[in-house]
């Protein structure tokens, strides 16, 4: 059964002010309804004025994603009633969007590239936010916060060309990285990237899943929905064309009551705004180095693998971090950062920006000098990250090595240890002599244990071999 997925991605632009008024968009730490004015409250008589910066940001995305910008585009009204929508219409774009076409080269299943085409990009305003309170039949009520009302959004619509939840996740990672590189989007703002997905099994009706508010939820939501649809097909049940909501907490999609979704939005051109004639602006908009270009440069400049380069450039902050510490020892910095550090950060849900550069650089230097084993270095890294997480001033790796006695044991000092391990494990020695694979690993492990990881496994194996030869 072939899976077909198309995505609609809403991304908040991180302009200083809202799309049609002068209110600040940075309301994160402020109380409800503190970043509002007559315009974004939709008071009678107010008029929208388009924020030029928002248009420039949207055009920047269009340029970076290889879209065509028509000479003429326009805003339209999407009319519907909802308490978070103060004008009872959303100013959006309908049949004349800002940008058409475009594509993103996405990492394919086989490690190569797969081109995913875009349908369009358009601009629109975010509605306000509802906060549900109370409980019970009579006690429930809803408050409205209009701080978000009028924040600029772009909606990026893909063609239905994605074929698995994994691929969709990789696509979103790539898109998110690109948006971050462009500097038009703040990934740390809650709800700054929201996704709707169209999912179908080839030959069957398509289902729209709305309300995926975190891009991390996308893979889960898609996986659930595909499993649901495949199960229905196996049971010979009919898949109906419908809209479903993703319930983030439960990880399931549920059918939206059809009545609620039967909207006739009565789109028509927004009479208060002149049409946009901005295609000529595109040439002037400078693009920064984007993820693909940076990846290729990393391979060239640092001589690191394509895979490491892809991982390291897949996040702007990570790429910047890498460049800060990579210059002297890219061959160590690349695997350490892409394979080890990233894993430790994900485990702690810690942003790379919190990693202390001098400490991490000094640690890599110790690894390079060979003064600690990889095992000890990981231990030191974990210690430093934990100290940062707990709000402590982290120790320098040198201090930790001295305090915990983690210096790598070398040559003569470990020969004695190896000898005593061999004496205590005659059975394993005999196995090894009999050619039993695995016995050597056991012996190395015992030595590592005895040295508390301070010895280099390769060196131990060599000493074992030497001692047993004698």
């Amino acid at each position: 059964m072939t899976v077909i997925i198309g995505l609609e991605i809403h991304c908040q632009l991180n302009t200083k002010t809202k799309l049609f008024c002068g209110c600040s968009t940075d309301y994160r730490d402020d109380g409800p309804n503190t970043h509002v004015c007559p315009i974004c409250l939709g008071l009678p008589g107010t008029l929208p004025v388009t924020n030029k910066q928002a248009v420039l940001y949207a055009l920047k995305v269009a340029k970076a994603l290889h879209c065509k910008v028509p000479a003429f585009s326009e805003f339209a009204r999407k009319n519907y009633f909802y308490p978070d929508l103060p004008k009872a219409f959303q100013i959006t774009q309908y049949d004349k969007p800002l940008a058409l076409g475009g594509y993103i080269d996405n990492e394919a299943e086989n490690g190569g590239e797969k081109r995913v085409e875009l349908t369009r990009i358009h601009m629109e305003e975010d509605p306000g936010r509802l906060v549900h309170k109370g409980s019970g039949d009579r006690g429930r009520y809803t408050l409205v916060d209009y701080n978000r009302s009028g924040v600029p959004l772009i909606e990026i619509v893909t063609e239905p060309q994605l074929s698995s939840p994994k691929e969709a996740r990789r696509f979103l990672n790539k898109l998110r990285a690109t948006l971050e590189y462009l500097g038009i989007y703040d990934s740390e703002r809650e709800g700054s990237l929201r996704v709707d997905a169209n999912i179908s099994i080839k030959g069957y009706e398509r289902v729209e899943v709305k309300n995926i508010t975190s891009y991390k939820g996308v893979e889960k939501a898609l996986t659930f929905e595909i499993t649901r649809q495949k199960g229905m097909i196996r049971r010979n049940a009919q898949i109906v064309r419908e809209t479903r909501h993703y319930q983030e907490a439960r990880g399931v999609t549920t059918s939206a009551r059809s009545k609620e979704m039967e909207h006739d939005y009565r789109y028509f051109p927004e009479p208060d705004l002149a049409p946009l004639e901005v295609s000529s602006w595109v040439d002037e908009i400078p693009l920064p180095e984007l993820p693909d270009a940076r990846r290729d440069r990393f391979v060239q400049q640092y001589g690191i693998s394509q895979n490491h380069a892809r991982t390291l450039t897949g996040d702007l902050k990570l790429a910047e971090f890498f460049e800060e510490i990579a210059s002297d020892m890219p061959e160590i910095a690349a695997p350490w950062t892409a394979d080890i550090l990233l894993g430790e950060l994900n485990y702690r849900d810690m942003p790379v920006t919190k990693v202390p550069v001098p400490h991490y650089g000094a640690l890599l230097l110790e690894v390079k000098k060979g003064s600690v084993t990889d095992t000890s270095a990981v231990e030191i890294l974990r210690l430093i990250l934990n100290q940062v997480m707990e709000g402590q001033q982290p120790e320098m790796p040198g201090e930790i090595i001295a305090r915990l006695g983690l210096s790598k044991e070398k040559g003569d000092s470990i020969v004695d240890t190896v000898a005593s391990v061999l004496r205590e494990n005659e059975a394993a020695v005999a196995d090894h002599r009999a050619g039993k694979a695995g016995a050597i690993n056991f012996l190395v492990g015992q030595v590592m244990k005895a040295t508390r990881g301070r010895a280099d496994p390769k060196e131990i194996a060599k000493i074992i071999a030497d001692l047993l030869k004698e």
Partner: protein
Amino acid sequence: MGSRYSFDNPDPHNAFITICREAEYGEGPLSGIPVAVKDNISTAGIETTCGSNILKGYIPPYDAHVITHLRSAGAAIVGKTNMDEFGMGTTTESSAFGPTLNPADPTRAPGGSSGGSAAAVASGMVQMALGTDTGGSIRCPASFCGIVGLKPTYGRVSRYGLIAYANSMEQIGPLAGNVRDCALLYSVIAGYDPRDGTSLDLPAPAPLKAEIAGKRIGVPAEFFGEGVDPAVAKTVQSGIDRLEGLGAEIISCSMPSMQYALAAYYVTSMSEASSNLGRYDGVRYGTAPDFVRSWHDAYSHIRKSGFGEEVRRRILLGSFALSAGYQGKYYAKAQAARQMVRNDFARLFETVDMLAGPTMPCVALPLGETSDPLSMYLADILTVPANLAGVPAISVPCGTAHNLPVGLQLIGKHRSEDEILSAALAFEEGSV
């Protein structure tokens, strides 16, 4: 600063919804002049209702752009005038605050929707007033009450703070007892406003001087077509003869798109209105709904009880005209027809400087007579073309028919307010 104008005249014609008995005024070209403002223009601190129950108690926190201009010109804003609810009418009878009486004949309606502003001027309560004109709402009551009213070029006066009925056609404009006062108020409110995305950035209005000799004035045959009261036509024709007597060249012409103008106007205005009026849900301002119900029920209830019949009719018709499956048949067709009207004006203005004809096809109607909405809509036939095309138009008194005032309408090219005001002044002075 800080002078006070005491405004305690009686209001026998119900021209006002709100009267400000002590109005502050300052220095400037309108210093100490009492000015009335139509109640769909936002005034900080003064209740602004649009003649509707649904906005009862709404006190805007901000001034419309024109109000800022009025205040800095020193005007005393003495009150908010009655109007058809949300501007939807030609008689001022659909107001939730009762009808306004025509000072020229108190048994008749003053026209609308700026009937309160026209009556306030015509009765002598104020020297000048602001109205708004979406399909004739300044010119119609000016004509029926025997005063002067100007609808400026679309974009010439900022709409910021004007509570929208049909955004793509409406303009704020002056009403006054004579052309000079009308031009004075116009010169105060005209100008660029960055808060209105459709605002035009043009030089300030030129000083007014009477000027008509040598002007080529087109008279479309359709302006005297079916439905125009012969007595009105006769009065206006004699007015046009006087224009010729003053040195203007009168040129007969034709405007075939007139046959589509009313339909284009009503479909467009109702469509836009259905969207503009969606926001009146009682959540943020105006009459509060009973929120023990679900939001959906609360919205239905407040909108059903808060809007009058004509407003509900237009919201429903406009929603229908925009709905899927009908949009192509109605809204899209109306836009095509609108383009034909624009094209007709553009073609005519290649050979003439302005157009002349009656403002209204009839004289003021007796109160309570227009219970049939369709016949009321038909009365707008001569005023809506200027709104569809966005060109300026003025109504200036030109005599009487059936002993009631009749207005002469002059329609100019885009941005030619100075020209039609000068012609209107020459006509007014030549009539004396």
